[in-house]
């Protein structure tokens, strides 16, 4: 018993973090599948290319999501220094920014429909824009759930290892979702 628990401990969290990485890989492949679908589709003829301008709302979204990554990173640094009050502040700020991002994306949809670019367009390149953003928002929601998990453990008296572990997986996943959006946005800008 004296040495064993330490060993299991090391083994039981490391593989779980790894699982988060593998999950991100498969989600990235999902988006890679969608964007490749876009390329195959729009490469067919001129009429099938993306012929609307991306709304400015997407620029604001990008700023918001980058800011949220920074605030989360800050919260993580504070956690490591055991500044739990600041950790919570950072986490709440991140959640607020995440929600603001989502609203900004939804506003982007409103702008697009205003331009006559509907989801059920006969040019599926436009439908793709909605699909990209929709599934990205679902990832944001998943990220928010992880962050809320971290918030909860920051209020409860859980062992600090677990607290840090939850922070770590939230942070990795959130940065991933952030980069994912930048990837999608740049992809759309290059193709419009």
């Amino acid at each position, binding site marked *: 018993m004296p040495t064993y*628990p330490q060993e299991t*401990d090391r083994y039981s969290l490391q593989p779980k973090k*790894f699982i988060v990485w593998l999950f991100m890989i498969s989600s990235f*492949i999902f988006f890679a599948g969608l964007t490749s679908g876009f390329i195959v589709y729009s490469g067919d003829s001129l009429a099938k290319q993306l012929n609307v301008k991306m709304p400015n709302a997407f620029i604001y979204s990008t700023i918001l999501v980058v800011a949220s990554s920074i605030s989360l990173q800050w919260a993580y640094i504070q956690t490591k220094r055991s500044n739990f009050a600041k950790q919570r502040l950072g986490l709440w700020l991140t959640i607020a920014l995440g929600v603001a991002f989502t609203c900004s994306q939804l506003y982007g949809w409103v702008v697009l429909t205003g331009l006559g670019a509907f*989801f*059920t367009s*006969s040019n*599926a390149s436009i439908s793709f824009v909605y699909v990209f953003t929709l599934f990205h928002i679902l990832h944001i929601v998943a990220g928010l759930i992880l962050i809320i998990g971290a918030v909860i453990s920051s209020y409860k008296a859980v062992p600090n290892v677990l607290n840090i572990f939850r922070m770590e997986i939230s942070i990795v996943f959130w940065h991933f979702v952030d980069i994912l959006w930048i990837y999608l946005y740049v992809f759309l800008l290059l193709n419009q």
Partner: protein
Amino acid sequence: MATLTLNDTHTAHHDHAAHGDHGHHKETFLNKYVFSQDHKMIAKQFLITGIFMGVVAMTLSILFRIQLAYPDESFPLLEMLLGKFAPEGRLDPNFYLSLVTIHGTIMVFFVLTAGLSGTFSNLLIPLQLGARDMASPFMNMLSYWFFATASVIMLATFFIETGPASSGWTIYPPLSALPKAMPGSGLGMTMWLISMVLFVASSLMGGINYVSTVLNMRTKGMDLWKMPLTIWAFFLTAIVGILSFPVLVAAVVLLIFDRSFGTSFYLSDIYIAGQALPNEGGSPVLWQHLFWFLGHPEVYIVLMPALGITSEVIATNARKPIFGYHAMVYSLIGITILSFIVWGHHMFVTGMNPFLGGVFMITTLVIAVPSAVKTFNYLATLWRGNIRFTPAMLFAIGLVSFFISGGLTGIFLGNAALDINLHDTYFVVAHFHLVMGSAAIFGMLSGIYHWFPKMFGKMMDAKLGYLHFWLTFISAYLVFFPMHFMGLDGVPRRYYAFTEFESMSEWLSVNKFITWSAILGAVAQVAFLYNFVYSIFWGKKTVQNPWESTTLEWTAPVEHLHGNWPGEIPTVYRWPYDYSKPGADVDFIPQTTPLSETMSSNLPHDFEGNEESERIQLDWEKENKKELVK
């Protein structure tokens, strides 16, 4: 104590076992047999569900074979069984298409993906690597229950008014995208899609777990190059799954939008009953790209675990080290990579740019190289082996046979020009049923016979096993071999009654022959099912290492424990294929035997360049030579 609390909240199950002396947690029927988080139990759940689904899919195939052999006859029994799906005792044409579709879907995904990987990856990854359980036992349990739910939904489509999906296992649009296209395109298709999304979620959770376990939880001494080939195969299969299944989800998501939200990803210029649909601009070929980007890797997801199992069974029962261990691993890696760049060979006749077709043709034919490496290595392992013909061994050899005979026709199909003739004919059906269907099923059966003692602590009856093997082996060839000739004659696949065409009516006799052979094959499975169920309850008790095998799973006690090994996890000192090593006094040396205990059989390369050990070995040899001289 902080760490302990942490373990208990997080991975309740296996850690308890690790310090089992803390007293036992309550084991109820529900958490032992139903919502179990123990990898061995989950493996059995996958196996039994897989076998059940296999029997269902086989029954479906017998039903449509009856239609093909007797297109004009009426079987009142069918009407009794199937009701309005077989009015007046003849299969309804739409229902025929449903049968083919669901047969393919269940066999490819539910039996040969979940049933095969789910069973053997779960059973063997922790046991052969020396881990207490999977990286996340909870996710592992979810993986099974998602699969079980997917199975129920898929089967439930037989009980709805419009019947199951019917546009083939590849569900090409527009048949799959327009709910009105045919009866099966309605609710049946919707349920198919829901079921498959759950299935993919299950596969991903399983696959992610396998990869994480293999990379993080190997016991001491088990470096990657000491892993059995089974583990290599499961590991690479899981990677292929993680990289390809999400693309299927992407394709399905777009299909769902087309079906229910009015988008036009795949739809264009369609008239139903003279009425033009509003959908415009879509591309059905887009679906094929996305689908086959998963679809081709998927066929290797099906095959690779079977190849891994075969490597293990052949080496063990030929009492020889596997020939070319490194080549076996590199060829698996080669197949893994290549499988992602050949999907276009399913699309040669979609009007693809001939240059692109040429590229896909080359990548496709290149896959034959690693496949051939594997085949030759199996044959070389068998060559002058001290073969023990256990049922598992027969099935493994059967796999090699099917892999060769089916792989050869792949080379025909891989030629873009030849494929113009052969595409969508029975030649393709023959090809993939031999190379994928029969080969992978034989790998799976081989694994079941081989690891049954590990799973259930009992032995299966060998005589029934031989009967099962020979009947199945012969009937598989009798069923699929004639299909090559039908295909060369241009007989199209998925036709309800092609023998009604004048030019193909002569094939009716062959169809009858195939159907009776298929029935023979189906009856042979009764021998297996009886043997399987009987042995679980009343079979002979097994000893710990019935096949005299070297790998770690046989060092675990026959009784199943949470955590697999009662004390410490064994350490590994050597590769898994030390069979009949010259100089050793037994014909197998388990991986757990240190080199210091086998001085008489050590070879220079066993020390991996460790000079100290080499010196000790040399000293020992000098010493012993002296003794011999005296």
